[in-house]
């Protein structure tokens, strides 16, 4: 992005000044380096979001922002239903409720190392991944509706996991307001065999260890010590979420015309929150959220079983589960008044500080864990939500490293086999369903996650707690 077109508000805060169509300004939180590396498309898309009806305060981009579908990836925007506010497919994304779950294992790096290879091989066999893979669970239509209304709570009731897993999941594993009748038959039929599968692309299951602790009180609350082994699960609502997105692009596209909402990009299609179409999309999207929560819960169960098989003393606990593609109804203060807003986070993680009712009991005094996935060759981070982030960006933080190189360019530059053997030399074991996938996901095709996280920390969006290093990774 051209720096001269931006107004610098602080070391890590930039404003895109309003043009004639923007109802509010747009804000970018990032260091000078990250902002100047950002695609011009981020500026364009963020300005488009700022032009939507009912947007409150600002259209916001996180430090890892890049060109997305309608909204930039790393985009955050809140809409007021009482002020003509809209709900948008582009503000949620195609992979509804894609997110990260971190599991504590009760084991240290030294304990795992001698058996790391058999552990990752076993996990690769047990957790279905890659294109064309099928889940262990086959569902009938009525059962799938239970997944869509019950989320991770459904999974635990079916025996996939422990009740305490739910307390450490956003929305306690089940978002209220799902209506499976708003989800098409095709969306459901695509999902029958996909519950409990990882998928492909940037999705993964990774074994990591805590290399460094930055904030001791939060680390204690989260149960993290240096050398501890963590499992990170990154995936979403699979085919169902995508089909909901595809279906509602049509529905909201028509609605947008009916309600005469001007949009500058097709994927920004939206409808008033208070319209039959908007309400329907919200209910369908909630189904997508619950599907993703159930999915990560089933994968948790499979992972736990493998750990117990290989390490009888393992105590696999859910640290936390965050979603970074959502629209959620939240209360926020606007000009001193508490308002009920529809907060879209597309490639952005909720990062609530202490005191918010959404934060689980165990983290009430420190804030919610914010789980940031890096690449298979670099590192990942755990941050904690802060009160300052609420005033800045509705309590939101970055979600990952963000790509710096296209998949096609990565594919030309690297061979999957070579990436995997190079990482093996560095002690990181990769099991990939596809060599192509491994090449596309080459660590160097991503921005430096550390600078993204540092910007998030320094901007006051969330505080750094721990740095995690990969030991082994399953790539879909």
């Amino acid at each position, binding site marked *: 992005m051209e720096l001269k077109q931006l107004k610098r508000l602080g070391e890590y805060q930039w404003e895109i000044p309003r043009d004639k169509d923007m109802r509010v300004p747009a804000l970018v939180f990032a260091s000078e380096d990250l902002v100047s590396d950002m695609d011009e498309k981020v500026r364009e898309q963020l300005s488009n979001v700022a032009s939507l009806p009912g947007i409150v305060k600002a259209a916001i981009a996180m430090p890892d922002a890049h060109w*997305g*579908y309608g909204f930039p990836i790393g985009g955050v925007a809140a809409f007021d239903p009482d002020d003509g506010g809209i709900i948008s497919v582009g503000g949620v994304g195609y992979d509804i409720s894609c997110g990260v779950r971190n599991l504590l294992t009760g084991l240290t790096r030294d304990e795992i190392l001698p058996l790391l290879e058999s552990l990752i091989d076993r996990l690769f066999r047990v957790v279905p991944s890659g*294109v*064309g893979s099928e889940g262990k669970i086959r569902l009938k239509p009525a059962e799938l509706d239970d997944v869509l209304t019950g989320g991770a709570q459904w999974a635990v009731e079916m025996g996939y996991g422990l009740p305490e897993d739910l307390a450490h999941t956003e929305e306690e594993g089940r978002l209220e307001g799902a209506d499976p009748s708003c989800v098409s038959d095709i969306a459901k039929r695509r999902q029958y*065999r996909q519950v409990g599968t990882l998928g492909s*692309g940037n999705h993964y299951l990774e074994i990591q260890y805590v290399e460094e602790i930055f904030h001791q009180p939060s680390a204690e609350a989260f149960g993290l010590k240096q050398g501890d082994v963590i499992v990170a699960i990154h995936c979403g609502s699979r085919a169902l979420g*995508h089909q909901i997105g595809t279906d509602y692009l049509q529905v909201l596209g028509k609605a947008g015309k009916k309600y005469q909402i001007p949009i500058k990009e097709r994927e920004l299609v939206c409808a008033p929150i208070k319209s039959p179409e908007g309400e329907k999309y919200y209910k369908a999207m909630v189904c997508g959220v619950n599907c993703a929560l159930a999915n990560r819960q089933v994968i948790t169960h499979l992972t736990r079983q493998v750990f117990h098989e290989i390490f009888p003393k393992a105590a696999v606990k859910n640290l936390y589960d965050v979603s970074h593609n959502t629209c959620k109804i939240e209360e926020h203060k606007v000009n001193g008044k508490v308002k009920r807003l529809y907060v879209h986070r597309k490639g952005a993680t909720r990062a609530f500080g202490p005191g918010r009712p959404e934060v689980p009991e165990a983290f009430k005094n420190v804030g919610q864990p914010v789980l940031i996935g890096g690449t298979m060759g670099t590192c990942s981070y755990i941050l904690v939500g802060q009160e300052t982030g609420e005033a800045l960006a509705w309590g939101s933080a970055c979600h990952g490293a963000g790509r710096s190189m*296209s*998949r096609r360019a990565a594919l030309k530059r690297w061979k999957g086999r070579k990436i995997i053997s190079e990482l093996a030399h560095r002690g990181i074991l990769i099991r990939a369903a596809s060599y*192509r996938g491994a090449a596309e996901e080459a660590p160097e095709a991503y921005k430096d996650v550390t600078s993204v996280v540092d910007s998030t920390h320094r901007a006051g969006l969330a505080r750094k707690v721990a740095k995690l290093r990969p030991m082994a990774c399953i790539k879909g």
Partner: protein
Amino acid sequence: MTAFFETFDHGADIGIRGRGKTLSEAFENSAKSMFSLLVEDLDTVIPEKSVIISCESFDLEGLFVAWLNSLLAESDMQRLIFSDFKVKIQDLRLSGTAMGEPFDFSRHQRGVEVKGATFTELAVRQDGDWWIAQCVVDV
């Protein structure tokens, strides 16, 4: 003359493009481009089973996205990977056939999953004697 189907760059995902002497051919070749992402060598996929696809839309570009998304949905539901396509288009209605076989991991080298076709970089246009259809797919 460039290839009948190819991919193109996009920041986070990937673009697919098909060309043809007719609009239908461009749609067919674009589908090949998309499925060449799912499996390393499309020639290894035997077109032994066929599935009928029909869709419609409000414009040609909408129809193109609907066609690709219908193929992905059928591929998921029927557990098939497609390698050959036949398309007829009339008045923004498409009727077509997709042919392929179930994924066989002993013969097919896996590529990446395509979650859906998007409206980004979407174009269906005529360029001289050729029709070109393209869009970015979310992977």
